Structure formats: structure tokens, C-alpha cells
């Protein structure tokens, strides 16, 4: 029986270690963990791992959410029949969080922070003292700074890191075990996509298909040559 193991990526480790510490924090310490960073750095993979490990409640925010919609989404995640008023719903969420000891993971939180919904977040935290994990884009820390009541309850800030050389190697090995990617090739790729994990995956696949077509079982930068990388930038207009 072959059991797949999760690829040990930097951001996955960072987030789950931070949640671990928040979970085991001494009484009286705040319990908010915030992970932020550009899209494509692998925050979601980290979120999935942490959510599975701690059996967290997971909600993904939308721009259009009102306070009510936000609370209903959390309660739905908890499978709890929502109460009549907002304040009852806050109590229900808080009660379930503190009773069950399961963390609450809120993804794409940037959509909430600039709006009145953010106060609901503060209420939930205050009433539950649970472990709450916020995940969002780079501007999350500055938006949070404006919400003083929430900001000083942050136990740990976890900036998502660009992919490292080890990340690339681990990912390549896990995705394409039969093909050996030389270090210089991976390093060039990492540099070109600026550590964006999502683009790394796209390009590894590109290399893999080419290598398959050529019947190679190992490839380096020289072998890849001038085929180039997909960096997400639109092709430059050619001179007329």
C-alpha cells in the first residue's frame, strides 16, 4: 500500500507551525494568526494542510458578504442551524468554537477587513478566545492595522515566502518522480517566476511534456535551452 505524503513546502510548514503554537498558547495570550502574501505562493496548500491537521472550520470570504452572510457561512460550516439575529449567531459561533476547540480558518480575508464585517470578526474572537487564522493578500496587515481592537490580538504574523530551491526540488520530485530536473534548471525557473509556486507547477509540467516527447529521463538548463518559461506576462509586441 503506497500512501502519498504531502510535499513539504516552506509555506505549509510555516502556517501549520504557527497554528500549532497558537493552539498550545498559554491562557491570556491572544490567538489570532495571520498569513499574508501574493497569490500563487501556495497559501491554499498550506491552508488545506492546516485545516485537515486541526480539523478546522474553513470559510472562504467573498467581496459581497454582509455580516449576516459571513455568520451564516461559518454556521453552515459548523452544520449549526443559524439563530434569528446577528447577535445570537455570533454567540453560536463563539460557543461552538470554544467548546469544540477547533480553529476557524478564514481565507481571502482581505474582502472583509475594509468593511463593517470586520467588527463581527472581533466579536467572535472576543466571545470565544478561540484560535482564528486569517489568510489573505499582501495588504492584509495594513488593513488590520486600522482595526486596532483586532490588530493587537494577533499572536503571530506569517508572511508567505516565495518558493525556495528546496521547494522546487521537492515539488518536482513529488510530481514527476521519473524525471530528474537539474539544479541549474530549477534555479533559473525559480528566478524567472520570482518564486511563484503556481507558475513553478505550470512550468514543471511544460518541461515534463517536452522531456517526454524527447524521451529524456533527466534534463538541465542547457538541455532546456531557449524554450523559455511561462511567467504570466503577455508576449511583448514584436517590432513592425
Amino acid at each position, binding site marked *: *500500500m*503506497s*500512501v*502519498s*505524503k*504531502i*510535499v513539504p513546502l516552506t509555506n505549509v510548514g510555516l502556517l501549520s507551525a504557527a497554528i500549532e503554537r497558537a493552539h498550545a498558547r498559554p491562557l491570556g495570550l491572544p490567538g489570532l494568526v495571520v498569513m499574508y502574501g501574493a497569490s500563487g505562493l501556495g497559501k*491554499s*496548500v498550506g*491552508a*488545506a*494542510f492546516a*485545516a*485537515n*491537521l486541526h*480539523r478546522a*472550520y*474553513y470559510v*472562504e470570504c467573498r467581496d459581497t458578504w454582509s455580516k449576516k452572510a459571513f455568520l451564516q457561512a461559518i454556521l*453552515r*460550516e*459548523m*452544520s*449549526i*442551524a443559524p*439563530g434569528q439575529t446577528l447577535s*445570537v449567531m455570533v*454567540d*453560536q459561533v*463563539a*460557543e*461552538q468554537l*470554544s*467548546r*469544540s*476547540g477547533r480553529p476557524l480558518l478564514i*481565507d481571502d480575508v482581505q474582502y472583509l477587513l475594509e468593511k463593517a464585517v470586520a467588527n463581527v470578526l472581533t466579536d467572535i474572537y472576543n*466571545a470565544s478566545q478561540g484560535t482564528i487564522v486569517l489568510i489573505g493578500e499582501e495588504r492584509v496587515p495594513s488593513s488590520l492595522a486600522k482595526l486596532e481592537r483586532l490588530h493587537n490580538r494577533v499572536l503571530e504574523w506569517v508572511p508567505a515566502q516565495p518558493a525556495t530551491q528546496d521547494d522546487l526540488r521537492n515539488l518536482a520530485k*513529488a510530481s514527476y518522480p521519473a524525471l530528474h530536473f537539474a539544479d541549474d534548471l530549477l534555479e533559473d525557473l525559480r528566478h524567472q517566476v520570482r518564486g511563484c509556486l503556481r507558475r513553478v507547477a505550470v512550468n514543471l509540467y511544460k518541461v515534463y511534456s517536452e522531456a*517526454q516527447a524527447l524521451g529524456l529521463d533527466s534534463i538541465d538548463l542547457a538541455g532546456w535551452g531557449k524554450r523559455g518559461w511561462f511567467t504570466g506576462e503577455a508576449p511583448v509586441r514584436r517590432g513592425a
Partner: protein
Amino acid sequence: MAGGRGRKPIHLEMRGNKSNRQRIWEAIRAERDGFQVADVAHRAKTDITVVNTYVQSLLRGEYVELISGAPYKTQTLRLIKDVGAEAPSLTKEGKPSNSGKGTEAMWRTLRILGELDAHELAAQASTVTPTTPSTAASYLLWLKKAGYVIEVLAGKPGRKARYSLAPGKYTGPRPPMIQKIGQVFDPNLSKVVFRQPEPAEIEL
């Protein structure tokens, strides 16, 4: 806890169809300061032997304790560890049980990751309980038949098929179950969402 602030107890009730244990747990929570097995069985509309089994697990796991009465007589118990709305899933010995947690992790992962293949799904679910890629692939296949996931990229030799959750198909946190008779049951909607057209047992 909330009680200290003089609030009314907060009403937490699970929605969707409930298992026996869930109904028993809710009945116990409603009578937390002193309950008897027969009353719980009546309130939960469950057979008394089922209640007894679960209460034994809860006793061993120290979720409830005996306050009066001898064994085999009418006992009164009370709740001492309230873990919220969801009935704790326990083994006979009162230890947390892992049954169903792998499927739950796969279902959760599908929603968080958006797009994945069977290997990635198995890897994520293995965080909770060892899961093979073929288990994950089979779960994906059933969900695909039921219209819950779509195949984004077809598999071919050397390339794994990639799947994603179909839009609007996140029906709730409880994972759709594959039942042995060849059907997919969604506990969030409490209905069978896919049934194998031909009985599968013929090809044994």
C-alpha cells in the same frame, strides 16, 4: 464560559439529517445536569441499547459522569465535558475515533484547493489518516458520476487526471458518502444524489 456572564444557554443544534449518536448527544446536552438513559432514548427517539452503548463510550471517555444509581439500576448521569454541537465520535473505549475522517479530509481539501489530482488529494487526506491514491481516485470518480466534481484535464498515460469541485456543489461540511450498493449519499441534503444504473453485485 458564557454561563458566567449570566447569559441564556446558547442553542446549538446540528442541521441536516442526524445520526442516532447525534440525536443522543443533543438530548444529553439538553439535560446536561442530570439525565437518565431511558429519558434520553425517548427524547432522541432511539433504541435504549444504542443509547447505552454510546453512554458507555462517553463514560469511558469522561464526557459524562455518574451522579447516582448503581449499575443495572436506574442511573442518573451528567455531562462534564461539553465539546459543542457535534456529537464526539468515539470508540467503545471512549477514545476519539478516526472513522470517516479521511473522507471528510478529502471533501475539505477539494473545496480549499480548487483543482487537484488523486495523488494530491491522497497526500492531503493522509494528514489525517493514511489514504492511498487509489482510494482518492475512486472517491473522485464517484463524485464525478454524481456531478459533484468535474474533470478539468483528462488523464492519459503519464498524466494524472485533474479534478475540481463543480460550481455550487459544495453542499455543506459533511462529506458525500459512497455506499457499498453503488450509490452516493449526501448527508448535507440527506438524499441519494447518484445511483448506479445496474446493480453492481452481478459482476462479482
